[in-house]
């Protein structure tokens, strides 16, 4: 039986949860005081990889780019799913925009060996560009399916079938392997057989145990290891120019409210009229 080889892209982001996140006085993020955690959307990419591993066997490799302490992010990811973890880390990779990041990650994936599937989560919680995944697919020259809510693989036909959200509709898309998948926040793994659920339990326990001893399955690669063109990565390889960052306007501290009697139809009509006015500008 052919088994699936999957790569999952993961990223560390500031922990935006209440009580964890810290802001400076000018409302910008205080990176130093905010812990870095696994990007929440990446958990769904990992869940997708785990689902495929349960159903088809094979291996799941985790790839991330970031400073050396991102090993903790990879460990967090491995607690969900992962056989090996690769951190692409080098000072020369710093300052990268999404395209330069895509070039770096694609180089990492090529060095590992091209997999059947690359899976990424929907947007990172910090940059929120949603570009790195598609750009990586472009660099790898993989077909890409985004907003995936469920997927299945036909190993014999070398096909992936995915259901993706498109507005209010669900599209069903078929693509040849190898393929790039971006999971939607609404992704759900589906297990209808007891055998698979038992395997899920066992793989879950195994991966948690592996994550606690991540060193034996962890590799860190720099620019020299990847053999990537230095002009294509880091700040040098980044065509994006950030012109200006504007803080989100703060809402007025005091607002006036007009109390309306919900039982009075006339007053409710007036409310509706006012809303229409405001919306139309």
């Amino acid at each position, binding site marked *: 039986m052919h088994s699936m080889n999957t790569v999952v892209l993961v990223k560390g982001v500031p922990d935006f949860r209440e009580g964890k996140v810290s802001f400076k006085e000018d409302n910008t993020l205080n990176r130093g005081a905010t812990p870095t955690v696994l990007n929440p959307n990446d958990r769904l990419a990992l869940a997708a990889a785990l689902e495929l591993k349960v159903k088809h066997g094979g291996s799941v490799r985790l790839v991330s780019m970031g400073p050396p302490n991102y090993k903790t992010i990879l460990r967090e990811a491995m607690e969900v799913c992962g056989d090996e973890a690769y951190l692409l880390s080098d000072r020369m990779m710093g300052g990268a925009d999404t395209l330069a990041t895509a070039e770096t990650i694609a180089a990492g994936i090529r060095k590992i060996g091209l997999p059947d599937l690359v899976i990424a989560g929907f947007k990172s919680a910090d940059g929120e560009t949603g570009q790195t995944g598609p750009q990586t697919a472009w660099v790898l020259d993989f077909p890409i399916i985004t907003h995936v809510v469920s997927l299945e693989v036909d190993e014999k036909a070398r096909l992936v079938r995915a259901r993706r959200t498109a507005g209010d509709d669900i599209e069903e898309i078929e693509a040849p392997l190898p393929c790039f998948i971006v999971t939607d926040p609404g992704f759900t793994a589906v297990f209808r057989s*007891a055998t698979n*659920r*038992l395997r899920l339990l*066992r793989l879950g326990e195994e991966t948690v145990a592996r994550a606690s001893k991540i060193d034996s399955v962890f590799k860190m690669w720099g620019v020299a290891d990847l053999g990537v063109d230095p002009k294509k990565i880091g700040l040098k390889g980044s065509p994006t120019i950030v012109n200006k960052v504007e803080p989100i306007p703060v809402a007025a501290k005091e607002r006036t409210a007009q109390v309306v009697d919900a039982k009075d139809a006339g007053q409710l009509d007036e409310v509706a009229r006012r809303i229409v006015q405001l919306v139309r500008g």
Partner: protein
Amino acid sequence: MAEKFEAVVVGAGPAGLAAAYELARNGTQVLVLERGKFPGAKNVTGGILYGQSNSPFNLDYLFPDFEKKAPLERDIKSYVMHNIAGDKVKSMDITRLHDHKTSYAWSVLRVPFDKWFGERVHREAEKHGGGILTNVRAKAPLEDGNRIVGVVTDELDPIKADVVIAADGATSDLVRTAGLRGWGPEEHWFQGVKVVARMPRTLLEQRFNVSGREGSGHLFAGDLFGGCRGGGFLYTNKDTLSVGTVFHLDSITAKKTEPHKYLDRLIKHPFFTNLTGGHYDEAEYSAKLIPDGKKNALRFPYRDNLLAVGDAAGQMKAAGPIIKGMNLGITAGILAAQAFLTAKRQRRLHHMGPLYGSYLANSYVGSELFGKRLLRWLAGWRLPNKMLEGFVTRPRFIRSKFGQKRIQRMVSSYRLASIAPDNDFVYVGLPTAVGRAIGDRVESELPAAKTRPIDDRIAALTYDTDIGREHIVVRDASVAASGLAVMTCPVSSPDSSRGCYRLEKARDASGRESRRVVLDTQPCVECGTCAIVAATDWNTPRGGKGVQYQLG
């Protein structure tokens, strides 16, 4: 094609887990399906896990080391019955009754206990390609033609199996859908409500005069439960108390009473206040239907390759105040597993049902549940009971040395207890008369315990609600058909608007007002009471949903 396991066990309580462990350690591929989020999530017990000295098939048969490894509370070494009449109490030692064929009597809390048991079973079952799956609700047998060949669940595709063991408790979906038993009348059930109350260990050991791993049990009967047939119990745990009341369900409905109010009455009694030193710190409220084994136990707890064990098969023995359930379930589970193993070895799988039946009949489970029929029938005669009552409850008789000796012997006799009829005399008349005639007046300088109102009890429970998918539907909302549920449901009260059942005024088109019963399933503790006392379509919630006990 449906996937196939050699054995499927439905329900990860003691009976199902015992069956699964016995199967797994004999090399069977066994899948256990549990609808809770973890084994124990749906389970509560009145208290004691007995070991039977007249059977090898106890928990120690599976785990010789269980007394060292399992999360047990205390080995109940002394047992006292408190006969209450108003503020007078006469305590009688009934340890002899408790000790009858008893090798151990551990008080347990079901959440930690079942979790431990489940962990052990899962590890063993894994070795043979099986294991425990939680959050899966098996709702019916899978039938091929007229034969049971597996199970149908809410969450998974149908699963085939050579044997299906229905261990899904008192409210068993499988036993009903397989046609082995309906809900039956109220007379077939007890209803129990319980609180677990925290108590600092040193205080507990000092108040109850226990130490080390040993503990004590206390029973309460008499006139403080409004004439309901049943009583109260208290078991010491490590650093908690299990306190509850158990009544015949038909007795609760006849008196139109709220079960939790009687529990409160016990907790607020000055005798209880003195017993606990005025310390009362409620942690968890729970409720459960308990099958009355002598009416509810299945004579033939099997159909095709489906074998029912534990509460699902009504295997509960009340020998007077001694309540045995978990040990019967464990024994039945082991026997069901052995019946399958033997049938498989003999290549006569179709034979496993009758084989299980005969194993049961030859064990104490069979004799406890079905033995002494004639004596029981005789003991239930009204006239002799009336005469006995008239004689025994005379204060002069009770006060006499001779009378006290007789009564002490009566209440300590397992033989008598196991044939005693379910009448007012046994549950109420005698204890009240004893308390009144020779009890000591009890006063307490300490303030009575503050019990929680039902709303707070519900609020303290953990639920994963399934909004929009109600597992219980009221078929007939008239007060005549379903009104009893407002009183009898352990998480409903006419005083509360947050419980499951309440009455609502409805006005029809002609402006005529009538009252009808409305149901909110969110606070449901899945006891099954309303399936019996009200006109409902009753199902267990789907996997992972509903109440989730923390202590049990």
